[in-house]
């Protein structure tokens, strides 16, 4: 699948570094959700976040989105050559200074009968046009162009509820890419997607990463494909247990004791 690995994985942090999470702690209703989480996410890099259920993966994404207040530490973003912007406290920065964060949520549920077409959904999220009125051509064209980025032009008039798991992920991805963000967050993009859809989606992320120099951060339970697409893997269970290349993390004792699985190479002996 992957041909080149774009991100630099060497220790330390070069100037190209984009997102820095440092000692991040989050408490929700008196419970410690995240505890001293630190990692870096570089431009053009795909980082996979793995961990058991309840490890705080979704909470970490929501903290980066600024939707959860953090009780300690910081999240900051350094654009290439520019000064760092703190993200952890949304009141400290003006919205226009904040980097654009694209977000693909964990498969939202649409009923089959929902009278909501992909075009309605797209236009509602990306424009001021009230979608209960017939949608003008110019919005239609724009939605079509955005869907073309994920090879989904033909989905425009389908009801949201009739999309397959893979198609829904592509529509949500197209939405997260409009406008093209600095950082792309995906929550379990591979769950509910069949093998073919999974390959298509991963190839697409790889394409986008090189095309837009995006930082991509995604949570996943699919360990088998990690080595094919991820530059780096972070193993989380309230704190970072282990991070590094897929091969390093999959063969680490922390991975084995968390999932009771042996995935790493060199364990066969």
């Amino acid at each position, binding site marked *: 699948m992957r041909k080149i690995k774009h991100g630099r994985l060497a220790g330390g942090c070069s100037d190209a570094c984009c997102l820095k999470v440092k000692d991040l702690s989050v408490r929700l*209703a008196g419970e410690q959700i995240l505890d001293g989480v630190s990692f870096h996410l570089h431009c053009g890099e795909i980082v996979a976040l793995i961990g058991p259920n309840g490890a705080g993966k979704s909470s970490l994404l*929501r903290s980066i989105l600024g939707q959860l207040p953090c009780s300690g530490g910081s999240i900051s973003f350094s654009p290439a050559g520019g000064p760092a912007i703190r993200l952890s406290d949304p009141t400290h920065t003006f919205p226009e200074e904040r980097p654009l964060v694209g977000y693909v*949520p964990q498969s939202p549920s649409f009923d089959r009968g929902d009278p*909501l077409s992909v075009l309605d*959904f797209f236009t509602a999220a990306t424009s001021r046009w*009230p979608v*209960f009125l017939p949608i003008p051509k110019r919005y239609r064209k724009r939605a079509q162009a955005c869907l073309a980025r994920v090879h989904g032009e033909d989905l425009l008039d389908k009801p949201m509820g009739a999309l397959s798991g893979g198609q829904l992920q592509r529509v949500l991805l197209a939405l997260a890419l409009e406008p093209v963000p600095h950082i792309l967050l995906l929550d379990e993009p591979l769950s509910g997607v069949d093998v073919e859809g999974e390959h298509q989606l991963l190839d697409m992320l790889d394409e986008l990463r090189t095309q837009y120099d995006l930082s991509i951060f995604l949570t996943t339970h699919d360990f088998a494909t990690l080595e094919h697409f991820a530059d780096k893997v972070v193993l989380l269970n309230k704190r970072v247990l282990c991070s590094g290349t897929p091969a390093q993390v999959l063969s680490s004792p922390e991975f084995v004791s968390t999932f009771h699985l042996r995935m790493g190479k060199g364990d066969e002996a």
Partner: protein
Amino acid sequence: MMQLWYAMVDLLPFEWAQPGSMLFMKNALLAVLVISPLFGLLSTMVVHSRMSFFSDALGHSAFTGMAIGALFGLNDPTWASVLFSVFFAVLFNVVRRRAALTSDTVIGVFASTAMALGIFLSTLGGASFTKFNRLLIGDILSVEPGKIGILALILLGVAALWLVCFDRLMLSAVHPALAASRGVQVFWQETVFSVAIAVVVTLSMTWVGLLVINSLLVLPAAAGRNMARSMAQYHLFSVAGAAVAGIAGLMTSYHLGSSAGASITLYLALFFALSFLFGKKS
């Protein structure tokens, strides 16, 4: 304004449309033409964001407001009732956000408390409940031009809210975190929408009747949903269906002497049944 309306209705070929007669019927027709699109519009979001139980609870709280207003000896307790149900709607949204309970449990708690409080206050000291019966059944024939004016302003207000906020309301209902990631203030959207329902339900309760008012908030869009493939179609079917059922229900109630609110609801139920049988097959 009303003279113009009467002059227009006088042209209709109905026995009650004779010039100078049956003004109450002409008032009622105008009221129905204002109320039904109003409910048709709100209905789309009530059904889309699965709030039909919530709107039912708001009706109960409006009744409590009426009882509180009557207790304080207000001649027209409607405005006290509006204030109370708006308070209830906001409080509900705050509790729903804080509580680790599912929405339907929170609504159940609120609805039963509001209903009990309303009955408690209205029967205090052995007072008779019968004066509240008209709220339960509703009487559209008693609507006055001034009230129709207020309802028309509310309709304009809701239409404006829809033009400005509909996209954000809809996204908040579809996926709150996704909406928030695109800059939508989900809590405020939900609150504004709840308050709109609270105001509309409370102001129209006297004419439509508490017992059937929620069906007007559920049935038009439930039927529209069976047929529509896009948001525009959904709104068209819901608003048009509500308007047709409203007029047909009023005519039926005139000829048969039945409650207008109940007659309208039955036409909406028929609309739903037809849409279910002949609507889109998914």
